[in-house]
């Protein structure tokens, strides 16, 4: 087969990684810029970093499971090239936001 399809979990959780990484970066900016957000995260699970980690890991797991279950359980169809591009872009974008924020903004 020329371009064999990836398993639905490979695609679903790969997309979930990309999205959760970007959300992770957005939460960094939000909590550092807003005292209200930071205080809410501190009181969530006792420490802002613990709340932050739990939110992002939870998002990854839930999103991955949801994306694998849509379309009657067939999941999302995506080529390997598109999945890899999305994953790599998500990781790079998130890293740029986080590093850029602490280097130039905070």
């Amino acid at each position, binding site marked *: 087969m020329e371009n064999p399809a990836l*398993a639905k979990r490979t695609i679903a*959780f*790969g997309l979930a990684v990309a999205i959760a990484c970007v959300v992770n970066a957005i939460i960094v900016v939000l909590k550092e810029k807003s005292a209200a957000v930071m205080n809410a995260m501190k009181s969530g699970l006792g420490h802002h970093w613990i709340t932050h980690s739990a939110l992002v890991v939870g998002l990854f797991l839930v999103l*991955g499971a949801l994306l694998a279950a849509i379309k009657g359980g067939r999941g999302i169809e995506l080529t390997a090239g598109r999945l890899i591009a999305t994953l790599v872009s998500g*990781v790079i974008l998130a890293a740029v936001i986080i590093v850029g924020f602490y280097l130039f903004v*905070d």
Partner: protein
Amino acid sequence: MNEMILMTHVLFGVGCMLAALWLFVDVMNVREATVGRIRAISWGAAAFMWVAFIVGGFWYVTFYKVDKAIILKGPWPFAHGKVMETKEHLVIMLLLLATYLPIAASDNLVGNKNARKVMLWVSAIVALLALAMDGEGGIIAMGVKVGLLPK
């Protein structure tokens, strides 16, 4: 004791990085006889990363405030303000990627070159990100050291 906890964090983080490197090479040469090993090592990489994350997180919330105070008063305040702040948030991404490794490894690695491509990319990113985290940890530790040197 707190130093032993910190070294455990480093040990398991390096273990994750080595497992990811192993995976990269093993997936490039995958065959039926090695798929089981690849899947086992991908679980190992994820497990090592979770241990590193939990142990490191525990150390961070319990003991780091002492080191932070030393760093901020010393000649390398960036070791906290820039390096630790980025490390504690980039490492969450590393945790997600390492957790994804056994999921991607459960695909048909022998018969599907696309599945192999995904594994190669993810294991490479995990190895590089783990190396970056290790480097950042070294800078943070050095920030503590230079903060303790006599002026």
